[in-house]
């Protein structure tokens, strides 16, 4: 039995888990176990209540268009709860579709506009949008490397998205694109940081390939629950997987 534990909510994990997103929880659990922390997994899906006060971390992954439209409808019912969790500094990783749906709206490849819940300030056009001056009509697919401007850390991953996301005024990028395309292929931003929310288009998945980020988020989650312990110091003592 571990001496500490955290609860993880996998938002729509049965519907929004298209590119190995669950790997982020595998990585988080891997590091947690080494510092005597158990991770309790909870699926929060269609029709379920999301009480953010019960959770120390949430993952919201990407899905296929059809599943995403179904999730978007259900998410509206949870919007206030998600907003409460985020504004309360709850740690959250949102990947691809999950990242998009937390913003104002997203437009699918066929032009269908899907409402996000607007708890964050970004929006997502599709790849045919007139304002795109580069790679119009093309999916952004390939390896991507970014630099986190807050920490100087470099993150590696793989992107594969048609949606083009533009950040809002009170949002900053997870990183500046060193190679690849990032949020929209135009402004060199990739992902988002807002309070303790990290958004990204990175598959890989991001925590598996970038252990430094996984540890940072894990430390944030643990420090909220167990502020008396120096979690960063504990995590510094175990090996970090980055590749």
């Amino acid at each position, binding site marked *: 039995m571990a001496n500490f534990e955290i609860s993880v909510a*996998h938002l729509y*994990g*049965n*519907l929004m*888990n*298209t*590119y*190995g*997103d*669950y*790997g982020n929880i*595998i*990585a988080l659990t*891997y590091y947690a176990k080494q510092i005597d922390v158990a991770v309790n997994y909870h*699926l929060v*899906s*269609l029709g379920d209540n999301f009480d953010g006060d019960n959770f120390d971390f949430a993952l919201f992954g990407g899905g*296929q*268009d*059809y*599943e995403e439209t*179904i999730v978007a409808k259900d998410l509206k019912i949870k919007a206030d709860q998600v907003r409460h969790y985020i504004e309360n500094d709850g740690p959250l990783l949102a990947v691809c579709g999950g990242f998009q749906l937390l913003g104002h709206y997203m437009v699918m490849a066929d032009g269908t506009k899907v409402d996000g819940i607007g708890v964050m300030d970004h929006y997502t056009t599709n790849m045919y949008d007139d304002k795109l001056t580069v790679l119009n009509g093309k999916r952004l*697919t*390939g390896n991507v490397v970014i630099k986190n401007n807050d920490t100087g850390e470099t993150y590696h991953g*793989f992107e*594969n998205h048609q949606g083009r996301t533009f950040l809002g005024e009170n949002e900053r990028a997870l990183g500046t694109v060193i190679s690849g395309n990032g949020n929209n292929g135009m402004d060199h931003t990739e992902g988002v940081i807002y309070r303790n929310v990290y958004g990204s288009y990175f*598959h*890989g*998945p991001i925590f*598996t*390939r970038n252990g430094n980020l996984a540890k940072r988020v894990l430390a944030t989650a643990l420090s909220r629950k167990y502020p008396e312990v120096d979690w960063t110091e504990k995590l510094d003592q175990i090996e970090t*997987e980055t*590749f």
Partner: protein
Amino acid sequence: MTLKSTLARVTAKSSYWLLHDVLHRGGTSLPGKLAVSIDPNILTTIQQNFDLIIVTGTNGKTLTTALITRVLQAGGYTVITNPSGSNMVQGITGTLVTAKVKPSPNGQKPIAVLEVDEANVEKITAAMKPKMFVLTNIFRDQLDRYGEIYTTYDKIIAGIKHAPEAVVLANGDSPIFTRGDFTNERKYFGFNHVQPADYKPAVAPINTDGILSPTDHSVLKYDFITYANLGKYFSTSDNFARPKLNYQVTSINDLTPKYSTFSIDNTPLRIEIGGLYNIYNALTAFAVGREFNVDSEKIKTAFESNAQIFGRQEALHVDGKDVTIVLIKNPVGTNSVIDMMVTEENDFSLLALLNANYADGIDTSWIWDAEFEKLHDTHIKAVATGGERYKDLRVRLKMAGFPDQAVYEDLTQIVTAIKALPTEKVYIAATYTAMLQLREQLGAAGYIKGGF
């Protein structure tokens, strides 16, 4: 036959002869290309010579096509089929224009059984009208190329719509195949080996695609699941449920890594290959055979007398090691391979090889959707990793609880890698181009006859 089409066929055949018999090179794309350049309507013209069956889907196309071929041959049909890997329009054209079509011994028309890439179905049916579409399954596969499962199915549907007279024979256990607004007659095959008293209503595990009911968009429940999202499904809020099956597995007796025994429509059968997923392939071939009036006993004989066609799962010996090579290419396929390893009674080692070239899928994130954690339920004694993306795979297996791994950055060390494993039984799981490289190395070292 017009002069143009005759010329097209002669040119294709002579280029095929040049490539195969003189230069000893494989491939049917070039003859196909030549034939089409001379007569763009060549496919339409030659179709009068045979009936056509199109086999498509994500996993199992090659083996299913080979099994259907043997089953129909056992029923007295002359069968033309395309070699594995030639499943795009040019390769298929090459196969058809160079084939020698003899009359069927049973007096029926010869049959072309074609494995067709999902995105190429429409290109084929624009020119030829099949008698039957055979749909195996649609799983997430190499999304960087084709997109999502519904997009893949839409491509197949576009092909089906060109041939409304064709029967669509589909896997009834896969919810996606109830979709589609085509008017063709539909028939289904599936598993019914569990008695109602043993039903345990459940939902699919979280890492499963295609689990929403197309009618009310609720998460489907299952009386039983065979694997992934396949099984006897139903919606809890309306009447949507698995369709009535025309052909069904009625019992499963033995599941071992080397063979399976089971019954289809109460005919006892045996196939010389492990894995529940291969029973689906056999079921598909059985259903096609019955649709073409091949009797059950002949199908049984076809399965039992053709052990060598189960070739994708290759067994060979490397200096006292009993090595089995399996292809992995997507999460569902990999999970099926792991399920098969659960039935392995001997201690074994696993050498896993990952590449990310175009033919493998350039996005490696799928390895996180495969349940390597389940290897702890097997008699596994050692894990080694390699391939061009060995770093990804090393971390995947490390996080699955296998911290001690031999890591091979370079497949030239493959024989060394195999010999270093502690058990006599060795499984090698490799993605497509890693498997080609592996075979090349084993061929050069003399472990595969005739090299590659």
